[in-house]
């Protein structure tokens, strides 16, 4: 257990620093790379929560697909990127974020969560497959998701193709 604790703290600190770098760095490309680092630490966090399947999916989708998409977009629009400046709302945005964090932290720490002492299920992959695809599982969202992806694909093609 002590190993998990140490892993959590290292991942949490690295993840928060990487997240701060995303919003504070002046260079878009470096911000994108810190975002990749942050995604990786989140995958590590999933492992400490014994969500092995999700950790793999996180690396495939976020670290793989989404990061590559973002970096591609940065390179495509590179000649007009003037870094990653803040707008005039920097101070109000900072206050909103701090207030939001204060409120959420207060609520999170003062609620009695119904924590169960059962050890988590492992491995998770077969259980997730049953939840997704069997009767009595989440078959409805599984059916809506491909339609959503279809809409997104059509949309991306329509928007990017020249007139």
């Amino acid at each position, binding site marked *: 257990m002590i190993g*998990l604790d140490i892993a*959590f703290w290292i991942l*949490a600190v690295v993840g*928060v620093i990487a*997240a*701060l770098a*995303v*919003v504070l760095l002046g260079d878009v490309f470096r911000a*994108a790379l810190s*975002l990749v680092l*942050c995604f990786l630490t*989140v995958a590590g*966090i*999933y492992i400490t*929560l014994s*969500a092995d399947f*999700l950790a793999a*999916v*996180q690396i495939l989708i*976020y670290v793989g697909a*989404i990061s590559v998409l*973002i970096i*591609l*977009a*940065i390179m*495509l*629009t590179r000649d*007009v*990127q*003037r870094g*990653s400046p*803040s*707008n*005039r709302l920097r101070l*109000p*945005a*900072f206050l*909103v*974020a*701090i207030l939001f*964090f204060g409120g*959420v*932290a207060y609520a*999170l720490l003062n609620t009695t*969560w119904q*924590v*169960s002492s*059962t050890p988590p*299920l492992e491995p*998770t992959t077969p*259980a*997730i497959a049953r*939840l997704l695809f069997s009767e009595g599982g989440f078959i409805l969202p599984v059916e809506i998701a491909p339609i*959503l*992806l279809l*809409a*997104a*694909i059509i949309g991306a093609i329509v*928007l*990017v193709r020249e007139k």
Partner: protein
Amino acid sequence: MVGLEHYLILSAVLFSIGLYGALAKRNAIVILMSIELMLNAVNIAMVAFSRYIVPLLLTGQVFVIFIMVVAAAEVAVGLAIIIAIYRHRETIDATKIDLMKW
């Protein structure tokens, strides 16, 4: 001993950082990246709740899978729009885009 609260606070910190970035940044791509941070923060909270509240049900993990699907679709459409704008205006600064007030 690390418990549910630790994960939740980590999630709140990441979400607030993402919120700050989404509100304070000008570059549309950086705003999209901040939104991804917020979604990852939510995912951590979901998985933590799933692990500690219903350890045998995995509902939260299934939720996270769907959030990832939607996030990927949203990023694809978002970047398509950004590229379409770039073609016309040669800028993707969300405040420079000022034909209409922000």
